[in-house]
């Protein structure tokens, strides 16, 4: 139960940080995605179910900031959580490098929902977006994940 509360707290904090502090440190418009890091944390450690529910919750909180597309980020978070859970058994999940790489890929997946759903992007303009924003943000997220994931994991789930 405490784990669930901690995940809820982290999802809430991630959305809040994403909407406030992270905007201040966005070099060239690139931002790490803390939502994805929290979803990855839940999915990698606890499996598909936890990943999906954490993704749904984080997505819903993000949706609340943009009511016209309510449900979009929930779907994005859900899919991201599901993919995390699926990847859990297929990667060396104990390795920090694997975790960071997975987080980068998940960021790209989540960004698809932002680009095509919220921003109304088209298929032809996606390569430009991918090079200009997508790749950089994914790498920043991976970097942030490599730094904070171990600490978050220890705080949420205790020592292995």
């Amino acid at each position, binding site marked *: 139960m405490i784990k669930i509360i901690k995940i809820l707290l982290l999802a809430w904090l991630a959305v809040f940080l994403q909407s406030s502090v992270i905007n201040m440190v966005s070099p060239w418009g690139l931002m790490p995605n803390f939502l994805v890091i929290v979803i990855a944390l839940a999915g990698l450690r606890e499996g598909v179910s936890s990943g999906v529910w954490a993704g749904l919750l984080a997505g819903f909180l993000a949706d609340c900031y943009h*009511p016209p597309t*309510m449900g979009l980020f*929930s779907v994005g978070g859900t899919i991201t959580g599901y993919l995390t*859970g*699926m990847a859990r058994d297929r990667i060396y999940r104990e390795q920090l490098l694997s975790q960071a790489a997975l987080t980068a890929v998940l960021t790209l997946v989540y960004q698809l929902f932002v680009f095509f759903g919220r921003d109304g992007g088209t298929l032809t303009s996606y390569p430009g977006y991918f090079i200009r924003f997508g790749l950089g943000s994914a790498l920043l997220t991976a970097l942030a994940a490599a730094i904070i994931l171990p600490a978050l994991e220890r705080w949420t789930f205790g020592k292995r």
Partner: protein
Amino acid sequence: MLLFNRRIWHRHDIAVLIAALLISAVLALLPSGLKTALGSGVVGTIFAPLEYPASQARSLFSSWKDNQELRQRLAVASLENISLKEAAQENDEFRKLLDLRSRTQWLLRPARVVGREPSARASALIVEPNNPKGVGQDMPAIIDRGLVGKVVSSGPEYSQVATIFDKDSRVSAIVARSRVLGIFRTDRGQRCILDRVPLRSDVRKGDTVLTSGYGQVFPSGLLLGTVEKILIDKRQLTLNIEINPSLDLNRISQIFIITGGVNPPLPSLSPVKTQDSLASRPRRRIAAPPPPEMDIRLPQAPVPVPDESELPGGAGQ
């Protein structure tokens, strides 16, 4: 046995996935009013308590940059101020001669920002007006640096403001120096561009872009940004002008909603007032020495009145 167990788990996972997707679908299918109420309620309840201190911290963080920039601008503005005072005085005299009605100020309603969409150029803000009564849809939201956006929905406590970075936002804009008209919009929420500007228009890098007031939603003369890059779109025979927006959402914790009134007088002649009670005051005249006697004769032909939005700060009637 192991395979069986794995299958069961996979089924369980898929059931969880389907359940979560169904919940998302239900959220997506909610009526738009309910979506707005739900969004505003959640943001207002669980994020607002932290958002306000965070926005204050953001303002503090960015204020040292502002400080240097403002010092430079103050020097330039002081010089401009002197010439504007002269121009305003002349303008007053001409207005009297042409029997134009005098201008009043906007009715401004302060509102604090309690939430925003998590992106660098957020397309929506959740704001809490000082007095939500009287705040309605399509009312422009501004800050001292220019236009923020317009109110898209207002509730008993919170209102939602669609910023100029919203992908559906279109603002009729004008280049202050050359009076070239265009449409200010964002390119899929990423770049800000001035669209539909004819190829041979006189637009230069660094030109200031203001609202034109032609769209009937936003008043004229509100700052939108400066020209950053000019690209030629040969196929459409137009210029694609990239704008560096003046609006920096990281620096705002409070906005003003224009609930009524018309454009204010020249900024150099009126102290900044933000209270509704002061908004409808007639313009304060600066005591100036009586003008020298002038022999002004009205011509027979109608005099072309210059576009008033040329004046800094917007000076529509």
